[in-house]
């Protein structure tokens, strides 16, 4: 993307930077695989009411702990039922909504905070930079899981609280990366040129800086989304995240934990789906980094 600002590149024969980007993306198996899995789970989350065979909240005391179909169950409950007789597949499908919603919104909130801080620090430097660097240090020193647990315990474990707590805690990587990228970009000649012709600061930030740090931003958004999803699952597992009866994958692992001895699939299935989603998002993020910044590949 950065190449397209270079006027010379348009006159060179052969594929354009955009075409090369596309070609690199299509040959990167990690990116393809990650995007495919994330896309699939996104569709599952959106069309959950159509896909789920049962109501994820409907309890049936007559049909508790029915095993999945591959362990001798029936197709009526393909992945069996939990300790309250709720259809496991339906809860898993609705759980995708919880994970993706929390991951996306938390990453957006933290991305907004971190980007604002990082770009300000990188662009203005001096005292602003010193304050932001100090705040990053303070934030890194706070144990995330512990602080999140304590705040959720005080404010109550609703979806909104969990999303806000994670959003307000996970901005550190955004700030670090955006600060470094902005520092690099704001030294370029075209930024100096924009300053000389009298462009306003918001204009320079929006039209000269942001487009050039955008690729890095997208990579961090994906990685932090994965981070937020993992943290939500851990909080819910510890009983201080999303509260029952909402189907969160971390909560499902926690509820299945006590019956793990006899019914290990209660723990294995939601954990495996969680692992797959986070792995796919990470592969997507790593892939995007490789594809958009080929010179940084190791």
């Amino acid at each position, binding site marked *: 993307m950065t190449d397209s600002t270079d006027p010379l590149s348009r006159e060179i024969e052969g594929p354009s930077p955009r075409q090369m980007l596309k070609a690199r993306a299509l040959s990167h198996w990690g990116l393809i695989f990650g995007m495919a899995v994330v896309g699939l789970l996104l569709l599952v989350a959106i069309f959950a009411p159509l896909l789920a065979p049962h109501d994820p909240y409907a309890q049936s005391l007559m049909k508790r702990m029915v095993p999945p179909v591959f362990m001798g169950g029936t197709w009526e409950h393909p992945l069996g039922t939990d300790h309250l007789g709720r259809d496991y597949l339906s809860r898993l499908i609705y759980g995708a909504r919880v994970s993706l919603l929390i991951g996306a919104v938390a990453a957006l909130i933290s991305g907004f905070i971190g980007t604002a801080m990082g770009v300000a620090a990188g662009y203005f430097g001096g005292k602003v930079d010193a304050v932001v660097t100090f705040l990053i240090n303070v934030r890194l*020193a*706070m*144990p995330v*899981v512990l602080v999140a*647990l304590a705040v959720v315990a*005080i*404010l109550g474990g609703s979806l909104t609280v969990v999303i806000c707590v994670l959003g307000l805690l996970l901005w550190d990587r955004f700030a670090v990366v955006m600060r470094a990228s902005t520092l690099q970009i704001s030294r370029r000649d075209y930024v100096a040129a924009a300053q000389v012709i009298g462009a306003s600061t918001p204009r320079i930030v929006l039209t000269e800086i942001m487009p050039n740090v955008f690729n890095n931003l997208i990579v961090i958004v994906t990685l932090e989304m994965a981070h937020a999803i993992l943290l939500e699952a851990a909080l819910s597992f510890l009983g201080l995240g999303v509260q029952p009866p909402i189907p969160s994958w*971390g909560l499902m692992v926690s509820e299945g934990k006590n019956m793990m001895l006899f019914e290990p699939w209660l*723990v294995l299935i939601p954990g495996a789906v969680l692992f797959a989603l986070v792995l796919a998002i990470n*592969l997507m993020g790593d892939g995007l980094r490789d594809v958009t910044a080929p010179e940084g590949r190791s």
Partner: protein
Amino acid sequence: MLAFILKRLGLAVLVAFTVSFISFSLLFLSGDPAAALAGETASGEDVEALRRLYGFDRPMLVQYGDWLFSALQGDFGESYYFKLPVASLIAERLQVTMTLGVCGILFALITAVPLGVVAAIRPNSIIDRVALFLSVAGQAMPSFWFGLILIVIFAIQLGMLPPSGADSWQHFIMPTIVLGYYAMPAIMRLTRAGMLDVLNSDYIRTARAKGAGESRVLFKHALRNAIIPVVSLAAVQMGFMLGGSIVVESVFALHGAGYLAWESIARNDLPTVQALILVFSMFYIVFTFLADVLNAWLDPRMRSA
């Protein structure tokens, strides 16, 4: 060097004070800690009595000053639940957490450094790919789930290890693996990148040209330099791991400081939670400070930063 250390020390102290203020004020988020402590069924008079007993009726800054002054002398007040001094409670539980943290970081170093070295010697080989996959998978694996899987396999199916508790060294094997696995990807990536960097440098070519054996080149010349950033990363990871031990300790019912944190949060035990947030933050601050100093000592170029 001394100027660098003093500057970093001053920053560390400032960060520590800021963290102490945040961890103190976090618990006032609910608006009224006395009401939270008394529970939903308490009458207005009970809440009022609690408020006066614990001094919640004073201005928040006065309470903070009071708390900080005692905390600096090692007095974190008395636990609401255990009715014991918080400081001795934490000191007792920290032994388990520190043991776990040290074992975890050692496990991570012992496994990740050789993998990183091998991956760097043969880039894009099968071993490199497997190592890369392990590191990507390691970042995606939910630690509580990984712990439960180990329990199912090694404690329930095979019966080789005890599933929970902290009575013998065997109880620490699975928690060590889960906690250490979490720190492995970063250490391995840094070792690999450092080795690749060093192996392409001029002095390695010189060492090879003068006929030094390959193992001598790798271990005496290359690894020694590549390992410098890894040591300080390990210190930082150790600080993170202690904070992350809360999940691992609750999976394996290890009664360490992380487990204490979880219990105290669930029981609204404010003084213990405040002290634990501060203690875990202090560990991180001390470890990163040591890492910075170590880096500057080993690599004078870092001192200007």
